[in-house]
């Protein structure tokens, strides 16, 4: 409720400020004609921005320090003899009771008279501080409004000021994204380093046995060899690529070169729907349908294929990636200049000759880029492999056997009761960091190739 009032008040202030700047701008135009530097809407935005700044500063200060002030006030409401008898958790409990009373909720047990009094006092304190903050924000905003309005003259460069503020706002938005990334990487690195204080990095990166002692019994941590997981990940990724790249690329070629407009209008959205299916559904599909099917098909030709295996997970992951490969390849084929195609046709090349000899070579770097992006998606994919790969972290080369992947092991180590003090759970960060570095390198390489390709035809 309070937040709504606050937001409404700020919006009204914003509207009034904009209107006031705009009308002053209008009157300047009426008086001076086109010699006014900025258009009225820029003057409006200028005044509105000025009015918002102090109001937001007041609110931000309250947000930062309000909680502490309120906490101290509540503590001061508790009688001294009771306060001294309370430990930290008892204090938090008491504060919670007073807050509940203040906001009118019921509390467990009998309400002491001093608790009731404190609750009432807190309620009026909250109302007063809210009113004070609101009025302070509005008054300072209004003050800034009048100051900004008084600055508006025919020569006032409001447009430049507004554009600068817009630039700063956009900068802040992108900074949020960048800082988040940096924060995630930093936490990955620090936690991974903590893991390496338990386990020798050499044993982690080059170990061939994955056997974490999750129960923590017997005083040893178990073995954390990355290689079985990495091998499983790469095997599944390779199978997925074997499925996704031919199918995706050929469907892109068909849609781009052969399909007429009506077919394309239906087929393209349908393929893109495939991209919208949640991966857990794909995993389910792998577990229930594809796995048993592959097992039976293998049995029919004398192959021992497990229902949950690298093959099952890889095939389904490949199907999942098809739309990704096909829509990226389609974009890249579209970027090959039409004049090149015309040139080949003009020489009497057939459609398939044109595609093989001209279109694909011209699009190849872009297609390689798309391929690498697809690989990095496959490596990071989790749900399908959790359900369909069989979770068997053993180093072996047979795709018909169950395997485990980096992502699956992260899930296994971090779900359940974890306390992040031993290597059993911290290994998740080391695995995550490994995964991150692999996909980052792939993405950078892929983007590099795609970009080089784009420059070629601009």
């Amino acid at each position, binding site marked *: 409720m309070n937040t709504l009032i606050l937001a409404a008040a700020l919006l009204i202030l914003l509207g009034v400020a904009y209107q006031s700047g705009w009308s002053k701008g209008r009157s300047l135009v009426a008086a001076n004609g086109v010699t006014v530097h900025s258009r009225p809407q820029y003057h409006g935005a200028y005044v509105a921005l000025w009015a918002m700044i102090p109001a937001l500063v007041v609110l931000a200060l309250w947000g930062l320090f309000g909680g502490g002030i309120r906490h101290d006030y509540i503590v001061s409401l508790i009688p001294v003899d009771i306060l001294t008898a309370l430990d930290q958790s008892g204090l938090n409990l008491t504060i919670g009771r007073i807050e509940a009373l203040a906001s009118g909720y019921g509390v467990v047990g009998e309400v002491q008279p001093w608790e009731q009094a404190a609750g009432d006092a807190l309620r009026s304190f909250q109302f007063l501080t809210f009113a004070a903050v609101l009025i302070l924000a509005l008054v300072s905003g209004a003050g800034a409004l009048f100051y900004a309005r008084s600055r508006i003259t025919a020569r006032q460069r409001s447009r430049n000021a507004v554009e600068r503020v817009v630039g700063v706002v956009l900068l802040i938005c992108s900074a949020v994204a960048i800082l988040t990334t940096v924060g995630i990487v930093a936490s990955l690195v620090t936690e991974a380093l903590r893991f390496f204080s338990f386990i020798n990095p050499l044993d982690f990166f080059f170990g061939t046995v994955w056997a974490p002692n999750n129960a923590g019994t017997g005083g040893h941590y178990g073995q954390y060899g990355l290689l079985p997981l990495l091998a499983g990940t790469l095997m599944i990724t390779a199978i997925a690529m074997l499925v996704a790249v031919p199918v995706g690329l050929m469907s892109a070629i068909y849609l781009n070169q052969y399909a007429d407009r009506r077919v394309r209008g239906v087929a393209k959205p349908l393929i893109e729907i495939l991209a919208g299916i949640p991966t857990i559904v794909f995993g389910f599909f792998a577990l229930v349908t594809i796995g048993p099917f592959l097992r039976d098909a293998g049995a029919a030709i004398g192959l021992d294929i497990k229902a949950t295996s690298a093959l099952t997970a890889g095939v389904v992951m490949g199907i999942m990636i098809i739309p990704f490969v096909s829509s990226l390849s389609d974009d890249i084929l579209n970027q090959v200049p039409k004049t090149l195609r015309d*040139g080949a046709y003009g020489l*009497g090349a057939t459609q398939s000759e044109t595609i093989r000899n001209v279109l694909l070579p011209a699009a190849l770097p872009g297609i390689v880029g798309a391929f690498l992006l697809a690989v990095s998606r496959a490596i990071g994919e989790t749900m399908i492999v959790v359900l369909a790969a069989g979770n068997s972290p053993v180093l072996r080369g047979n795709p018909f056997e169950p395997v485990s992947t980096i992502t699956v092991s992260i899930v296994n180590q971090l779900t359940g009761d974890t306390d992040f003090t031993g290597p059993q759970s911290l290994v998740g960060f080391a695995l995550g960091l490994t995964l991150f570095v692999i996909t980052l390198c792939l993405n950078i390489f892929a983007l590099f190739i795609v970009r080089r390709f784009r420059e070629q035809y601009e």
Partner: protein
Amino acid sequence: MDVLAGKVKVTQKTLDQTMNPAELMDHPIRLTARDVTVHYGAKQALHGISIDIPDRAVTAFIGPSGCGKSTFLRCINRMNDTIEGAKVGGRIELDGQDIYDPKLDVVELRARIGMVFQKPNPFPKSIYDNVAYGPRIHGLARNKADLDEIVVSSLRKAGLFEEVKDRLSEPGTGLSGGQQQRLCIARAIAVGPEVILMDEPCSALDPIATAIIEELIDELRENYTIVIVTHSMQQAARVSQKTAFFHLGNLIEQGDTEDIFTNPVNKQTQDYIMGRIG
């Protein structure tokens, strides 16, 4: 100044070489078009074009942008087939054979009627492979030596060989615009066509490169039937023997280039040549 002088020289040479109408009579008709119409979807782009194009001469199509001259050119080797929604009506014959005959192989047709495009469009391959591409797909060379010879002679005919002979394995896209366009001409010649269609071949080139290409077109006329679309009237006057003026999808006037430029019959042609429309 040298460069300018060179250009003027070229211009004068080509003007001197313009054949007189009597000479043109000796050239048999290679291509005939009768009532050719083109629709792009619901929009009609050409309204019944009828024209005869003589052998071993340059025929120029002129007219303002959007007049249908390129559209008509693309009908002659059926390049409009590759445009979705394009429908061609009427009849076009090459040596008396209907090129829109369903039994006719369009691949073979395009091998006989080569094309050079507005923007130089070398393939992202080496210079050698660009020229060798056509002979390879049509199986024109029995062995490597044959292919080498076709490539060299095509580059020679396109006047490019001396400039690129030391870097045949370098990418064709690395050449200058004018060189790229001559590479595209060499690529078209390599297939051994009888007719060469040129769609504003100089519009992306500077005046010097343009002069070189124009000179080349004049040489090629000895052996090929050439149809050139151009938005430049001066170019039409310099390189062609026959000229056809298009306007709003209609063929307004056609005839010997000299007549069209000195004594146009139609008022619209006159206006265009005088620079009043387009």
